[in-house]
């Protein structure tokens, strides 16, 4: 990518003119320090309220700030996962919440005292199982459906999420509305002997979430720059051409699905570990569409874009929580799906590449625009 940015000429100048181009031209150590500084700032976010003047404007009122930050962290995780499926491989998955649910339910089944299995494992022991089950569910869904055309795939994945919800609601093992209680929290002790991951303060959960996000970003970034990532790109741009050039499209689409499912499951694991309670009402379908809105809004196919989008879809509604609207006198939080539905339309019409676009994606869209027949 940096080589594209450095090319002189008409395109090169435009790309070098912005902040990203400037950053890419800095020496390696400056870039490393810059990234580390951003990460350090992210870890310090729970103390935002301490900043004079600006701080109190940023923090949420209707929900305590560390909890809001934790919510943001798992939304970001989901956005990163969906970005792999939608942004990289170009497969529209509308049932992403299904994988989130699979991850969370696996943890609940293995750890909660309400579970029929009666295993009551600690949270940490259930994590690898939950991720594996989510990944397998991704493969099971992907194997038959990835042969379908793009728009059919969207509807089938939507159906998958609904089936998971119906199963969760109607089967005795998954306990429907009663849900699972007392799902254990992550392990660890503070210096005074009290549990590190308690119910009072969500700050440690946020830090845990942030750490997981960093690991996921490293993994996804490396995948994107590998053979797998290049195959995804080829599939997204033109599946038939990719197939002819020898890309095994089904295999790489399955990869994208499985990795997306993994990350979604991880989000569910984190969610279950913090909440301690969940039932079938947690996993509504609007949720997947919200995450999709985040990815599209941030800039699909771009990691910083997905992070920004994921954070915004969680932050904006949480910031609005506890504020009454003047017309219906309901909590503005209730409007979140309606607002983001409208946001999706506006973004797709006015800025289809998203807030922080992937450069390649922006160029693809420009190309198509040129091909459009004048009407």
């Amino acid at each position: 990518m940096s080589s594209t940015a450095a090319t002189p000429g008409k395109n090169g100048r435009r790309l070098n003119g912005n902040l990203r181009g400037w950053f890419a031209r800095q020496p390696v150590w400056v870039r490393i320090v810059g990234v580390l500084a951003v990460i350090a700032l992210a870890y310090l976010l729970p103390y935002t309220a301490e900043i004079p003047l600006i701080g109190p404007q940023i923090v949420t009122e209707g929900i305590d700030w560390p909890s809001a930050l934790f919510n943001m962290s798992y939304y970001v995780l989901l956005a990163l996962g969906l970005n792999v499926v939608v942004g990289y491989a170009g497969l529209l998955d509308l049932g992403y919440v299904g994988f989130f649910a699979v991850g969370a339910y696996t943890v609940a089944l293995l750890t909660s005292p309400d579970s029929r299995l009666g295993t009551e494992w600690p949270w940490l022991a259930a994590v690898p199982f939950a991720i594996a089950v989510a990944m397998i569910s991704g493969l099971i869904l992907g194997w038959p459906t990835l042969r379908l055309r793009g728009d059919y795939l969207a509807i089938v994945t939507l159906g998958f999420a609904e089936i998971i919800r119906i199963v969760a609601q109607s089967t005795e093992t998954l306990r429907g509305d009663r849900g699972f209680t007392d799902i254990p929290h992550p392990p660890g002790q503070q210096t005074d002997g009290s549990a590190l991951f308690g119910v009072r303060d969500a700050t440690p959960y946020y830090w845990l979430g942030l750490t997981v996000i960093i690991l996921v970003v490293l993994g996804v970034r490396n995948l994107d720059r590998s053979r797998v990532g290049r195959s995804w790109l080829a599939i997204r741009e033109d599946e038939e051409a990719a197939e002819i050039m020898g890309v095994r499209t089904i295999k790489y689409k399955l990869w994208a699905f499985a990795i997306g499912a993994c990350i979604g499951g991880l989000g569910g694991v984190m969610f279950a570990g913090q909440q301690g309670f969940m039932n079938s009402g947690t996993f509504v379908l609007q949720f997947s569409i919200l995450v999709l809105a985040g990815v599209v809004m941030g800039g699909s196919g771009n990691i910083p874009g997905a992070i920004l989008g994921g954070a915004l879809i969680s932050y904006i509604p949480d910031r609005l929580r506890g504020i009454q609207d003047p017309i219906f006198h309901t909590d503005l939080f209730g409007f979140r799906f309606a607002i983001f539905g409208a946001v999706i339309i506006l973004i797709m019409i006015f800025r289809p590449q998203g807030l922080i676009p992937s450069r390649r994606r922006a160029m693809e869209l420009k190309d198509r625009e040129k091909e459009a027949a004048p009407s």
Partner: protein
Amino acid sequence: MNFSGLIHNFGPLTVTGLAQGAIIALFALGYTLVYGVLRLINFAHSEVFLLGTYASIIVWGFFGLDQNSPTPGMFAVIGLIILGMVAAVVASGVTAIGVELIAYRPLRRRNAPKLAFLITAIGASLAISETVGVITGRNIRGVPRLIRQTDVVVIGNTHITNLQILIVVLALVMMFLLDRFINRSRLGRGIRAVAQNPDSAALMGVNQGRVISLVFLLGGLMAGIAAVMYNLKIGVTRFDAGFLLGIEAFTAAVLGGIGNLRGALLGGLLLGVLQNYGAGLFGTEWLHAVSFVLLVVILLFRPTGLLGESLGRARA
């Protein structure tokens, strides 16, 4: 698995399924028309239907009717149903065209990738249904009982009510009229031309933009009629009523062959019946799951549906 239940209730399940399927079929026409012309899944069609259900309830509300009021007299009922249909059809038609103008037309002008259309469609669907959800407080809204259901035909344990007959007949009539319109009229010829090849149709003087609006309008009209029948049959509506039935309608369209009008009718009736058999076999809580599983199975084994995809090719 309750096989004896299924066999014992075979007749009643079929009759309920047919009435339900007729509503689904009319709803499915909207998906099939738009797909046939634009190759686009109009995800927001479920909200076109939803606003139809609310529009008719609001109009009936003007006459002081709510779910507790007694059934009015024969002529009043006919008038009220027609008025309700007019209101629903207007609301649905306006919504359908509005969605087309706001959400799809700007993208089409830019030759946006196919995925982009689907994403805005989802955005439109979510925005409309959630706005309705916020306004109505996410509560269910009862429908006045305009028709007192009485058994007209009784064969064994199978009871066929007047409402069920009305729904099926009305659906068949609408279906027939639409089929005639598409295959016989001048405007219908324009629609078929655009479905076959948009560019040549434009060169031959067909106004593409107008044809596309017309297609959305027709889908909206059918959804409006379906909405009134749904109201009469189910008796309640809610902000997510369109969404759930919409997926079934889409399944029906795919089952019959999306883009094929007669396929939508066949798919709708078949899906309604199969769903009820599934519910009889596994229990009613699995009714919706049946349609999803069916959808996946059809797409895997016969993705073009039972009658094939052919709005343009039929009688070309």
